[in-house]
């Protein structure tokens, strides 16, 4: 009796394993191979990699937001970085996450594609299960992303992922120079992600930002280089971050945890709620 039941269970497990492996084989044949570690492929980390960083980025900002950006750059020039959320370990969010300050991993499944970034341990979820936009979404730094797989050359295998991201939360900037998004956080980010046709270890992400701080949609193309054997790291930004922002002032912590000024003649923080020791 016991033997017969054991045989039945073993047969059932074997059938389940066969079904699962069949499904995996089917999926792997249909979706592109984006496995491995992807590192930033086109140099420094300004938002538009085709132009030098700073003023020569020439983002199509409205006059109001151009003035905000210029103030951010002026602050930066004197050592400040209160405008930069990442200085205090806030997430990059979208689309800045795709700068890939540290390597990124792209995990493709039928229902969703996930982008995991070593930097700040960020994680994107791009739904590809055919869902519609939900009515109510709590905004997040990475936003809510819906993707659609494209078989652009008709060979029966998907080769491009088109993604739209909405419902973003702030504060976010495009890059470390402080190119701003509108404070309404109504940005829509569209992406077209695909491997280079001639080089399977080169990935491209054409990213278009549509935002009320911009006078027109702003499209840049970022690239990533594949390392199939790359080592993954844990990146916990608050582990030992020495950058401190209090109000609009930036300070730097010494090894013992004392605040140091970052610019000449910088005032100390306002200590009104502390009793001075005389």
């Amino acid at each position: 009796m016991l033997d017969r039941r054991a045989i039945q269970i073993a047969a059932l497990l074997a059938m389940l394993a066969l079904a699962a492996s069949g499904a995996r084989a089917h999926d792997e044949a249909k979706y592109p191979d984006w496995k491995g570690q992807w590192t930033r492929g086109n140099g420094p980390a300004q938002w538009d990699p085709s132009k030098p960083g700073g003023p020569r980025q020439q983002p199509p900002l409205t006059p109001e937001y151009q003035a905000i950006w210029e103030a951010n750059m002026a602050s930066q020039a004197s050592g400040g970085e209160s405008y930069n959320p990442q200085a205090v370990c806030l997430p990059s969010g979208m689309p800045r996450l795709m700068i890939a300050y540290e390597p990124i991993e792209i995990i493709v499944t039928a229902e969703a594609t996930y982008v995991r970034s070593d930097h700040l341990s960020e994680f994107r979820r791009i739904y590809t299960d055919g869902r519609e936009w939900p009515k109510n979404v709590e905004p997040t730094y990475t936003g809510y992303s819906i993707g659609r797989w494209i078989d652009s050359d008709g060979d029966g295998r998907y080769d491009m992922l088109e993604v739209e991201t909405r419902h973003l939360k702030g504060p976010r900037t495009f890059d470390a120079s402080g190119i701003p998004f509108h404070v309404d956080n109504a940005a829509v980010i569209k992406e077209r992600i695909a491997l280079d046709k001639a080089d399977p270890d080169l990935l491209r992400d054409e990213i278009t930002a549509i935002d009320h701080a911009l006078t027109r949609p702003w499209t840049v193309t970022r690239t990533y280089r594949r390392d199939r054997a790359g080592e993954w790291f844990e990146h916990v930004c608050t582990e030992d971050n020495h950058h401190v922002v209090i109000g609009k002032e930036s300070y730097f912590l010494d090894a013992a945890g004392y605040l140091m000024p970052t610019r000449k003649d910088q005032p100390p923080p306002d200590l009104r709620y502390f009793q001075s020791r005389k």
Partner: protein
Amino acid sequence: MRRQLGALLLGGALVGSGGALAHHSFAMFDQEHPVELEGTVQEFKFTAPHAFIILVVKQEDGRLETWSLEGVSPSALVREGWSRTTLKPGDELKLRVTPLRSGAPGGAWVTQHIHFRDGKAVVLAP
């Protein structure tokens, strides 16, 4: 020992070295006026978001000053051949840093401008 170097443009070195730089601005460090430091490693912190060298530097008047020196991320260091044991307390270093604009004893370093005090490379080129 601290030695002021002539005005140099190190911006390219900082931005270009290691893929992990620049999630925050390095503008608080004066890249046009680097200084050369000689000192003893008190601690090498192989931590996120950026590695740190805590360096004790003897001043001309004999006083000891402790510098907090920020490098690239551990993962970027590993890609350049470093590990958490590359530097140890007591190691004698000679390095070029870009100091805080305020004059406080903090700064930033890159692997290209750091050697042991006897001139040996910290990490041999692969």
